[in-house]
């Protein structure tokens, strides 16, 4: 299953992208896609706090924050997510932030071609899966060699599965804060 989160301040763009991702007939097909869309980057960040996704696609120019800032924040929440910016506009400075800070995998220009964008998504998802698998295998090796404890390896596995799950947020009165 591929979990995709898409952010664009224009609902029509979101609808078009959702249709495109879910349409299995137009090749290349995204394997088993599940699409969440947000017109607000702030709401998208709130969602990302406790919903792991595989790929985040974001517009660049948005009222609340630009795509580079949004994806930089998203990366902090979910380091293993793949990130794509799709935009009709970006200056060099913005693209640099998107690459250096947000660590995007692809930059796609608007108007996009469905076929090209889907191919990019499939490729990025594959790349991301490889990275995650690589990390898991590396941890497996480290655990076997005793470099990291079984507990630590398990924590990392859990963190991969559900980002944020291994971190406990404490309230001022010593209580444990749980989000919905």
């Amino acid at each position: 299953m591929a979990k995709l989160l898409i952010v664009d301040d224009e609902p029509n763009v979101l609808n078009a992208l959702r249709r495109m991702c879910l349409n299995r007939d137009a090749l290349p097909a995204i394997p088993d896609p599940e699409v969440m869309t947000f017109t607000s980057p702030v709401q998208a960040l709130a969602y990302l706090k406790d919903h792991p996704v595989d790929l985040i696609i974001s517009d660049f120019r948005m009222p609340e924050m630009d795509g580079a800032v949004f994806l930089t924040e998203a990366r902090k929440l979910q380091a293993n997510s793949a990130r794509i910016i799709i935009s009709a506009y970006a200056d060099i400075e913005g693209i640099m932030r998107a690459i250096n800070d947000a660590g995007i995998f692809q930059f796609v220009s608007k108007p996009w071609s469905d076929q090209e964008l889907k191919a990019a998504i499939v490729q990025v998802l594959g790349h991301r899966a490889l990275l995650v698998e690589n990390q898991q295998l590396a941890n497996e090796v480290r655990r076997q060699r005793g470099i990291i404890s079984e507990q630590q390896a398990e924590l990392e596995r859990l963190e991969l599965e559900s980002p944020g799950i291994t971190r406990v947020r404490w309230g001022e009165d010593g209580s444990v804060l749980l989000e919905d």
Partner: protein
Amino acid sequence: MSATETVAPLGGDKTADLAWIRALYEFGQTAAYGADPLRVRQDILTHIVQGFDAESGSIALIVHGTEDELEIAAGTDLPQGIVGSRLQRGVGVFGHVVATGQPILINGNAAEAGLPLRVSEPRNRPAHSAMCWPLVVQEQIIGALAVNRATSRQRYTVEDLDRGQALASLLALVIANHQMNVDRDNRIVELSTLNETLQRVNAMLEDAQGQLIQSEKLASIGQIAAGVAHEINNPVGFVTSNLGTLESYLQRIFGLLGAYIEADRAAPAPVTEALARARVLRDNHDFDFLRGDIVDLLRESREGLVRVKGIVQDLKDFSRTGGEEAWEMADLHAVLESTLNIVRSELKRKARIEINYGNLPRVECVPSRLSQVFLNLLVNAGQAVGAEGKVTLSTGVEGSQVWIRVEDTGSGISEENLGRIFDPFFTTKPVGEGTGLGLSVSYAIVLKHGGQIDVESEVGVGTKFTVRLPIRHAGAAAAQVSADLYKSAA
């Protein structure tokens, strides 16, 4: 005093006097002498010498622009070299008369005459007799006139001096009048030269203003373009995507319908009521037509979107006309060749391409942008020529500039359109074939290179575009314009 004692104009036959005076007056009016003031004065003087029955005479005039210097302006019977020589105010007879403004009569030796006295009494011994009058115009002394009689002749009298004063005034007017004529002629020449200069400067200003207006237009279009491009690309993006999705949905639906139709064909008679209703609907709604037309509909819509994308791309190019790209010393012939390679196949089908390269130095430019300019000009030329057309591409150097000319034997551009071809969105091509941005983008690019595009065209004969570029890129085009203006005004 008897008539015999006086000289002709000073009291002789009245008709003769008048004729003499009239002749004197006419000298002042004679424009034919304009080019040679010396000759005019000489003629006037000769006339006066005759009129006063004198042997010789001379005129001294205050040198223009000075107060104290006199110049012998004319003379009869004077030794060579005297005319044109200078005198000081207050020195000598002329100097004295000019300084005092009073006429004098000299009989005998001037020194003996006791200047500045009026010498009225004739001396006993025969001596030469002379009169000298100041020339006054509007209370301004402009010089002096003197006439002399030989020693053997009758001497002038005080009465002669008084009568002569009136003539001197007339002469002063004649000289001043003549001087004014000369001045006027000079002014006319000056004015017409000035006028020519003004016309030239004016033409250059109009040219510069035209360029400014054009670049102003381009600049504002560029600004709008950058913003609009973004706004348009968003909807174009999702409409394109939706059309793609719609097409794929329709394929599924048609697939499904196809299956139903197959099932319908295979249905055994008699058919059910529902199936009969479906058949009626299918026939009434011309289902086969719909199925075919939907394909066209989607294809045409997609073509429209491709066009919109093209326009937006042109607009984006428009806001980037060479300002931020790398400048290099490029071989323009190589740029032209690579551009020709792109259009050659299309051009060849229609026109003969003739190449006439001069010797070009390397030119400081942004080659990719200039290539865009050449591409536009060549494509336009190709579109303008008919079946048996010719497109000539020539280059050359002119001072610190190079020129590249694209000439076609095509349909030409009408005069009313010629002034608008560089305007953004102006096109005479059929809808959909041209955005009207090609030439204005080219114009903007050439302007950024500090050059200019000139166009000459004759309907039915052909069009000639000449791009001029400075070999070294030295700032804005405006600098060149102001330098030209300075040159022509100097």
